[in-house]
């Protein structure tokens, strides 16, 4: 999707704020931040953020496009909503972080092998395939994302958990072959395809 990035750079020149406002979920809120920093201090994964939300908002205004979109900070959001309920300007920070991450991913600027990104994609694919999550495949998917050996190693480390869940009937080995699923999968897929088209249109994204 690199071409999409080039297209964006050309379309918005140096105006990264405008780009964010038009293309990122809830991006129009970024300008309302008053740099109090309450979000940055509220995040449970705060220490792991190279750039906390309030700083990211400032970077966006300062036009630091590459630093922001290639940062893995947004991917640290656990969706705990602490920042949202404390923000004195009522910015939907969780959604903005998700939105930025999503946008970065779509432009192909998100850091390679960002585990949360991979998991996010995996989860979406997993749950939309049949309309419901296949937890076993999902879990294995996470383990094996870095290849077979790594996967086996990880799975081995986590075997207690796996067995635990198996024994307590909270993990179903047969999901590997046939898991839970919606009946109208065709409808769901059509519906989602349509939704993606509309969204691209709304966010001025090249179809």
């Amino acid at each position, binding site marked *: 999707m690199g071409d999409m990035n080039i297209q964006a750079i050309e379309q918005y020149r140096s105006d990264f704020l405008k780009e964010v406002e038009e293309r990122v979920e809830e991006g129009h809120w970024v300008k309302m931040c*008053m740099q109090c920093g309450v979000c940055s201090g509220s995040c449970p994964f705060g220490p792991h953020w190279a750039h906390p939300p309030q700083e990211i908002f400032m970077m966006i205004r300062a036009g630091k496009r590459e630093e922001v979109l290639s940062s893995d900070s947004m991917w640290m959001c656990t969706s705990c909503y602490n920042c949202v309920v404390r923000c004195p300007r009522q910015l939907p920070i969780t959604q903005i972080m998700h939105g930025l991450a999503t946008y970065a991913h779509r432009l192909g600027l998100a850091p390679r092998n960002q585990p949360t990104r991979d998991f996010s994609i995996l989860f979406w694919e997993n749950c939309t395939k049949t309309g419901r999550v296949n937890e076993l495949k999902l879990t294995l998917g996470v383990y094996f994302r870095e290849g077979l050996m790594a996967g086996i190693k990880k799975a081995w480390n986590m075997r207690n958990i796996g067995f635990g869940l198996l024994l307590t009937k909270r993990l179903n080995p047969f999901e590997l072959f046939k898991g839970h699923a919606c009946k109208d999968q065709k409808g769901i897929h059509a519906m989602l395809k349509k939704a993606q088209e509309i969204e691209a249109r709304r966010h001025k994204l090249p179809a």
Partner: protein
Amino acid sequence: MAEMKTAAYVCRGCGIGERIDTARTAKVAEKEGKVQLVRQHDFLCNAEGVQLIRDDIEKEGVTHIAIGACSRRSKTEAFYFPTVALSRANLREGVIWTQPETEEARETTQEMADDYVRMACAEVKKMKLPAGNPEVGHAKRLLVVGGGVSGMTAALEAAKAGYSVVLVEKTGSLGGWAAKIHQRVPFHEPYQDPAPTGVTELAAAVTGDPGIKVYLNATLSRTSGAPGRFKVQIATESGGSSAEEVGAIVQATGFTTYDIAKLPELGGGKSPNVVDQAGLEKLAMEAAAKGQPIRRPSDGGEVKTVAFVQCAGQRDETGTHLPYCSGHCCATSIKQAMYFKDANPGVDTVVIYTDLRVPGNGEDFYRSGQSKGVTFTKGKVSSVEAGGNGCKVNFHDLILDDKNASIQADLVVLATGQVPVSGVNIEKQEEMPAEEKKVISILNLDYRQGPDLPQLKYGFTDSHFICFPYETRRTGIYAAGPVRRPMDMVQAIEDATGATLKAIQAMENAELGRAAHPRSGDLSFPSFRVDGCTQCKRCTVECPFGAIDEDEQRYPVFNESRCRRCGTCMGACPVRVISFENYSVDTVGSQIKAVDMPDEFSEKPRILVLACENDAYPALDMAGMTRTQYSAFVRVIPVRCLGSVNSIWITDALNSGYDGVMLMGCKHGDDYQCHFVKGSELATYRMSKIDDTLKQLALETERVATYEVAITDIARVPRLINDYAAKINEIGMSPLKGFA
């Protein structure tokens, strides 16, 4: 005036009766106080007791009464007898509440009570019922100096209240700065968009008001007189001159902008593309007139990016520029950024600030600016490179901690500060030739102490008092608007309205011969005996309010309506010719002498405490209310201000055998608390001089001590007294006892 008939009343209530032998005290009043009528009562402040006194006044023709009961600060509603001279002996807070309730203490407590009654009797006999300042003025016309928003508001509001107005404006038109701006910051909800200034309508209202006489292109060449009878000479550009009589003055001479040429490092004066906020307003008005967007001054090119540099030459700690914050500039820059955003959202507007200062509802305006896309960056601008058609603003981005941040802008707006137009700094006028003074001066007062209002700080003629923003040092003259303090338009309007009320009040009081704040309503006034005056000028120099001028023979001229009744002149006078009807060298002197002085072997020293009635005396009262004990050897006399303390009181006290004198006044220095500005400071200075006198009398210098006391020193004041009593005990009794 009918001849004097004196009466004394001793109350037995609130425990006085139990703690003091009031019969004996009453006798003291009769025999020593030489009072014609003496009564005791169990509950003097109740209806019956008060009626008793009233009857004596009406039926017995009593003219002077001394009441021995609670503090003069208590039960003032009950003990209100406006037709007679009144003194109060503080037997409750001042005696029984501060003395131990023990047998041993009985004697000293009794002595204390007896002395206070002696003092009250002596004092009241020296008092006259103030008749009111005879030299009243009847002018009910208000002079407003300055035709900006503040001045116009003052004129209109006064007119609405039914007072006629003379408005003098230096330039050829009304409006001041407000006429030079495109739009103003909103005053009302929703605080979202710039609003029309409404200055044209305001000016029209002023010129259209039959009660307001407007002089344009005019200045004041001379201002003389006093509240109620100011005479002003108005010089017009055409060389003409007219005279007006007015009752009070509102000075609304506003401000000028700080010269951006003094800010070359920020591109000031370097390029037409670097303007101050006033400059941007000019551009905005021109553009609006043409119905065009604001263009780049250098070449008329399109403006794509505008940078606003806040605190330009303000909040400066290096001493080169303005040290203060002008308060309005943040909101003004937001407003000006909106000029661009509202016209074309595509224009980038960046406000570079260190603290964004938009108090109150200004926060809504800030939000509105953000939602319109104005970018706010916390940073310190190091330099503006101005040349050609672009400017480079270099700054330290404090959030991203980027020392080398920069913005390329077509236009840079420097938020410079307000510089007050306050005329001559009279504290520094010596350096100035008279002619120059005349030109710069705004009021050209012919006051002994200088041609303009005293300045507080940085040229602003503000009040020093937080509780009393309009307390001015020139009675009847009130500053309003940015000349008083940096402020925006909405504040200026409020300020002008308040100042106008005070001016109206001054006129009303002047007509009745009453004092203005803080002794508002006081009918007493200073009078002096010409024979005996040595023309030493101390009174004219030291009057904190410039009330006293000098006549041709260099005798002091008391402009009573300018006077605040502090008595600083009385304290200053070396020959004691200045006095008030109810407060004089005698009223206090006689109290000092009235005290019964035990001999040197009695082991009963006597310590005189002269306490400022504003802070020290209430503190002593409250010490009593909290039953905090202090030495029974002190005798406290409240004074209007330590500045009114005449050295003779000290020497008299020492000569008549007092072992020590404590002076308790308010804090002085930069954050002085003295309600008469310099009183306590003067007193301290005068007392430092008294040491020589003490040496002549062969007395230890410790026998006179001065203290700065706050009204909250309820625990400290008794401590000071006790420590001092201990010290006197150390150095021993005064050798002068018995010689008096």
